[in-house]
């Protein structure tokens, strides 16, 4: 039996795990994906005969937090199983090999699974200066991605940088960074955004794809199973929002009582992610539960939205809340808005962003060179 014919169930067995462990894994994943429970059985049946996937994980302009998120989940978990024991054929940060040996290993893994592997990309892709800002083994990120995409059965952009450009894409975007979907335009890219994404979400998307094919995506290319609700929709502080009870500083009565963080800049109402339900660190907590507003990290351009501590603007339709605000909060709003206007006047909208909004082809040259 060739390596590619080994099924997911075989890989479990090889790792010393029983079929019961496999069934448990399927039950937990189906529940995680909010699939009807019968889907766990269907998933087990499919995965028992699905060839073990080859996952090629490529990193470009990124900070490695996406990988940290995935590997820092505590002792052997479901995430570890699917990525480390089962499928990960190439990841330059995790593997022991380096330099030419690493490149050779990657070429071999891609050649063996050409047309079948799952390509995970984290990091944005710099288009400026002919792609020279990110080069490994003599190949630019953009050329590397185009090549790797050709042999991929599915492409998953992990993290906000790969999905929407993220931090490298933030103004003034000196490297002309673009998201994966601007380099690969002829096929769908599954965007698993978040800075970083929740580890269970990354696993869930891979398992869903293996069991049932392409997941349903929202208008930003994100799987609806995880990005279908806003943080605000699922926030446990929501009853305080509805009653108009807000924290106005991080140490006032409202903050101490766990009231809504809207006035402290929470972006929960416009942010779609699963933090409020899945939470972080094995379901321990999430930012709002720890007393800080949502930064909106799973949304495009979250870095350039005018300040993490500035309340969402009137445009979101929430401004009538101003009626219940104290003077201090109103003062904060005005200062915040002024700061944002100032910040904007120092920025010029990057050509890459304009291109993205207009849906035109990606800029060939550094968009900042005029």
């Amino acid at each position, binding site marked *: 039996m060739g390596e590619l014919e080994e099924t997911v169930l075989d890989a479990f067995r090889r790792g010393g795990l029983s079929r019961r462990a496999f069934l448990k894994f399927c*039950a937990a994943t189906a529940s995680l994906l909010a699939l009807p429970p019968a889907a766990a059985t269907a998933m087990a049946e499919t995965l028992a005969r699905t060839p073990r996937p080859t996952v090629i994980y490529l990193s470009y302009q990124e900070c490695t937090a996406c990988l940290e998120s995935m590997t820092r989940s505590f002792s052997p978990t479901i995430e570890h199983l699917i990525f480390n024991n089962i499928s990960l054929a190439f990841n330059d940060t995790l593997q022991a090999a380096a330099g030419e040996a690493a490149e050779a290993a990657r070429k071999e893994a891609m050649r063996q699974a050409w047309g079948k592997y799952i390509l995970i990309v984290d990091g944005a892709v710099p288009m400026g200066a002919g792609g020279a800002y990110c080069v490994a083994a003599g190949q630019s990120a953009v050329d590397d991605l185009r090549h790797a995409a050709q042999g991929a059965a599915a492409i998953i952009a992990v993290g906000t940088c790969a999905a929407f450009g993220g931090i490298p894409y933030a103004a003034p975007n000196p490297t002309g960074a673009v998201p994966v979907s601007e380099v690969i335009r002829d096929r769908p890219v599954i965007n698993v955004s978040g800075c970083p994404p929740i580890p269970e979400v990354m696993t869930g998307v891979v398992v869903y794809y293996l069991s049932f094919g392409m997941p349903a995506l929202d208008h930003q290319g994100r799987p609806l199973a995880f990005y279908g609700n806003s943080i605000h929709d699922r926030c446990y502080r929501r009853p305080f929002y509805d009653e108009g009870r807000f924290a106005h500083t991080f140490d006032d009565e409202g903050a101490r009582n766990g009231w809504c963080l809207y006035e402290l800049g929470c972006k929960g109402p416009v942010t779609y992610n699963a933090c409020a339900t899945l939470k972080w660190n094995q379901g321990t907590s999430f930012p709002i539960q720890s007393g800080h507003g949502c930064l909106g990290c799973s949304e495009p351009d979250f870095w350039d939205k005018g300040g993490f501590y500035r309340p969402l603007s009137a445009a979101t339709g929430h401004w009538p809340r101003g009626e219940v605000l104290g003077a201090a909060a109103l003062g904060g709003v005005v200062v915040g808005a002024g700061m944002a206007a100032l910040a904007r006047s120092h920025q010029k909208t990057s050509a890459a962003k304009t291109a993205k909004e207009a849906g035109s082809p990606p800029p060939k040259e550094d968009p900042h060179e005029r």
Partner: protein
Amino acid sequence: MKPIDAIPIRPAPASDVAGNAPALLHEIAAALDTLLRTGREYCIDLSALPLSPADRDLLREALGTGEVRVDLDTLGNSHIEETGVPGVWWVCHRSEDGVLLTESLAICRVPEIIPAHPADIAMGLQGLQERMASREPGGH
């Protein structure tokens, strides 16, 4: 931060209301009826439902406690127990860190995860035979 119930405002609908359990009981009854007539199994994912403590109490009370309790030790602990209604199993899967992965009610004769699977039996048999062979004098 104070615990949420120390805040004088009720942050969520009062938890002494059992809103979903009565409907669940109907679902369970219908599933049992189907199981009896056709053998078709059913499963209700409790982790996906908003259940108040009162809902849980009502469910526990209506279903009661049965005769079978199974603890599975694979990828962390799983606790499976038959409720007082034969054919209704309460299933809790936990990770190795003890985090609840999923909780469900399985309506079936016995949950699929319990019986030994032929492939596992074959592997066990092979291992047993190897151990037997190595114990025999002369190794055959």
